[in-house]
């Protein structure tokens, strides 16, 4: 059986070392001073265990080629995951070219100067590895999972994709057809197109207002030239970073990465994305209705802009929302809509945060929209006006502290944690400081956050519904359409 003591549990290793010391229990007897000393040692022991156990084996290195590499070393299983992250999300799509970032990132995995798309798939899958790409608002990623023994192959393929993409016309045509098909299909899912409309309206003309996949018209217009320009501008060694988690020797890993990435282009694109502040949607509540008589429920989105991930009020808003709508079973909104009234399978709220802004949205899907909307609005209003209780705050804090280990549980969790630390400037000591960040949130902080960031009278409602507009009774709402 494999050695189970991982780097995350260096406390356990110390423990073993102490047991092997040669002193006997008799030697601990002594006068009052000795007892006092041992009391100090008890505290020291627990302090040590607590601190060492919480310090994760993570690091951040800058290679001489300029590349930043974040690592999480653990020998618990003979596997490694590796993710390249570029600050090239959909917010960098040029006007009229919505979907360009996504198309570029995806097309990179479909052929290099020396490897066809089929060859990449064959090489990766033959060893049971996998390669996937994703593009969000702020950044795009290419992620590989593989066995430890296949590290050289995976690094070779990943660096080849990043440094030598072919962007062939035939692969571009194939990919565009696939993406346009997926976009069309998203209109079969009310939740998907409801959210798209909601984001478009609350973010207005800000880049967060369009979906990373773009729309069928914009995608059809994107050319190979657009893609090559986007790639040349954004996929540089200074505009991204690598995250690696799993079983490896760090120095050997860094040396190999340095060799592979030394030829990567340098430079940082000079692009300013405007911050979008938390603000009321309008003077009065506004509604946008997408009438779909074939449905048997209404899909509801209520809210306005929110806060950025880097906001000083990150923790107060997070803790406050946990109480308001963090869970469909136990939060105030979940309890009101689902548990008490049985109006929906899911009802919740969330602050979705990105680099340059965020959204607040409460969502549910119900066959009784009037009642559900009323409950949600009342809960938002109540939170904004009277805040939370000490008991709710205490339970929310113990949730976040008890839940934190899940942030570095499986290898993918470790990668996500390091990626978020880097993208959102949280600092490598974030895992160690997390508990104190949570502990420091006061009832006054969350009540102030509720007042400041919830606008129960100035919201936008997007509703995809089988109920005609005349039958929707929402007090004071002005319809946009």
């Amino acid at each position, binding site marked *: 059986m494999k050695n189970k003591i991982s780097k995350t549990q260096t406390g*356990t290793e110390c423990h073993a070392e102490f047991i092997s010391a040669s002193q006997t229990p008799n030697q601990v007897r002594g006068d009052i001073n000795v007892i006092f000393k041992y009391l100090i040692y008890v505290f020291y022991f627990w302090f040590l265990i607590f601190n060492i156990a919480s310090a994760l084996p993570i690091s951040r290195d800058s290679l001489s080629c300029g590349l930043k590499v974040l690592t999480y070393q653990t020998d618990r299983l003979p596997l490694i995951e590796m993710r390249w992250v570029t600050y090239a999300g959909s917010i960098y799509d040029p006007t009229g070219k919505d979907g360009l970032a996504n198309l570029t990132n995806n097309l990179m995995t479909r052929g290099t100067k020396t490897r066809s798309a089929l060859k990449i798939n064959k090489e990766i899958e*033959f060893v049971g590895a996998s390669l996937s790409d994703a593009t969000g608002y702020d950044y795009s990623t290419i992620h590989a999972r593989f066995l430890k023994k296949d590290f050289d192959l995976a690094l070779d393929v990943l660096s080849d994709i990043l440094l030598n993409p072919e962007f062939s016309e035939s692969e571009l045509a194939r990919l565009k057809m696939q993406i346009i098909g997926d976009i069309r299909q998203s209109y079969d899912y009310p939740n998907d197109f409801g959210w798209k409309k909601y984001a478009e309206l609350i973010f207005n003309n800000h880049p967060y207002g369009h979906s990373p996949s773009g729309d069928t018209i914009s995608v059809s217009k994107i050319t190979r030239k657009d893609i090559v320009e986007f790639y040349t501008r954004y996929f540089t060694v200074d505009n991204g970073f690598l995250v690696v988690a799993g079983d490896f020797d760090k120095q050997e890993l860094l040396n190999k990465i340095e060799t592979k990435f030394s030829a990567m282009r340098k430079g940082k694109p000079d692009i300013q994305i405007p911050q979008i502040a938390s603000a009321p949607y309008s003077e009065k509540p506004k509604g946008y209705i997408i009438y779909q008589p074939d449905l048997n429920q209404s899909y509801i989105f209520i809210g306005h802009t929110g806060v950025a991930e880097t906001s000083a009020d990150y923790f107060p808003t997070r803790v406050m929302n946990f109480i308001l709508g963090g869970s469909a079973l136990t939060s105030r909104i979940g309890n009101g809509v689902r548990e008490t009234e049985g109006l929906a399978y899911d009802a919740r709220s969330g602050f979705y945060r990105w680099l340059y802004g965020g959204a607040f949205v409460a969502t549910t899907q119900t066959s009784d929209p009037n009642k559900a909307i009323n409950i949600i609005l009342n809960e938002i209003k109540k939170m904004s006006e009277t805040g939370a209780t000490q008991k709710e705050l205490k339970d929310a804090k113990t949730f976040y502290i008890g839940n934190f280990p899940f942030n570095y549980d499986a290898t993918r969790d470790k990668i996500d944690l390091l990626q978020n630390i880097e993208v959102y400037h949280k600092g490598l000591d974030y895992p160690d400081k997390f508990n104190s960040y949570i502990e420091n949130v006061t009832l006054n902080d969350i009540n102030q956050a509720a007042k400041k960031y919830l606008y129960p009278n100035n919201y936008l409602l997007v509703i995809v519904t089988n109920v005609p507009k005349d039958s929707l009774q929402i007090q004071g709402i002005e319809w946009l359409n």
Partner: protein
Amino acid sequence: MILSMKNNKCKFIKYFCLTLIFFFSTFATSFAASELKQPFADFPLYETYLNNGLRVLIYVDSSTPTVSTQLWYNVGAIYDPPYKSGVSHLLEHMDGTKNYKPREISAAVDALGGEDNAFTSNLYVCYYVDLSKDFYENALKFGAERMSSLDIPENKFQSERAVVMEERRLGENEPYDVLWEQFDLLAYKLHPYRNPIIGWMEDLQRIELKDLINHYHTYYQPSNTVCVIAGAVEPNDALVKVEKYFSKIKSKPVAHPVFVEPEQQGEQKMTIYKKVSTPAIVIGYHTTDVYSLDFYALEVLEALLSSGKDSRLYKKIVYEKQYALEVSAGNYLERDAGTFYFYAMPTKTTLVDSVQKLINDELAKIQSTDKDSITNEEMQRVKNQVIAYEIYSKDRSRGMGMRIGRQSITTGDLRDMIEYPQRIDQVTKDDVRRVINTYFVPKNRTVATLLPEENKK
């Protein structure tokens, strides 16, 4: 100064730790009435049965900071009473007990930072609570509460049934889900696989509180349950905790009805029309059950056809021909004989038949006795993927626990899971051809198609 502190510290630590070890070992040997066995060398799984029949499976992974505690009840949707489809799933939603009002358990798990949820399949219901390793005992406490003293107030029954009806409506609004529901209804004439796990709306309206209570008393017995604990635990200590909460729960025997689907006599087809952008097709063949050795040959066939972008269906239909947005194959077998299915989303309605033909062509190519109809390289890919996935599956305690729990319910014999890679390794090209010959015949086929409603004549 520092050195001397270290020496004294060591003395104390040693004394302290020896005391702890003594305390825990005494505690364990005094109270654990059952004895743990490690049935497989090199696999850190420990097993025992409590006196009431509860099967306890403890998978030890000290390298994770968490523990997943799972209770697997051997009662899924196929055991719903006639015309009461959805009872197993609705019962799964209930969590009030003698000592905890509804959702107080969820709130308590929240306050410990845990993640709890449950799901119902055709065969089983699984409740899991994942907690940081220091708190996992609470999951056992809550699980035993639910097993021994479920208490559902009538108003909670009413509101939760309404919740499940809304959950069903969500599925009804997704036409691709409706296609699968209609496929099962067409493929099975008698076996309860024909009913959706969530239940038909008409049945949900018929279900009463007493149906749930009856189902609970019939099936939620220790002898009909597997308790899986996966993660950073010491196995004897975990067993002591299991016994603390579960050993006093009395058990009565559970009998499961047996269902057999009569042999299909001819190909079955249906077309449904919905407001969708993209057509979709499900093609299924009745096959066999998990006890059959053919299961492993069908697993290899599934992987040859559809495990990744280097597999046959993707390469031919999505990549080369560009006839479909996606295509997949699946070997869905449980204790009772199941189906091997194909699912595709053709890019245009006019390509639906072509996609079906291309799937049949690929089967015919594999079936051909030409020695290169299956390459050594692709057989090796399938086997390499299985070996890699075995390692990936250990990455998350919840996932590993679920593999163990699922196996403990489907065949009950964990050797089937441990030996899975070897059994796949033993599958030959001729085995794959044989299962195609045996099962993939038109008489045994069911085809359900979803078309955009503008195609309706």
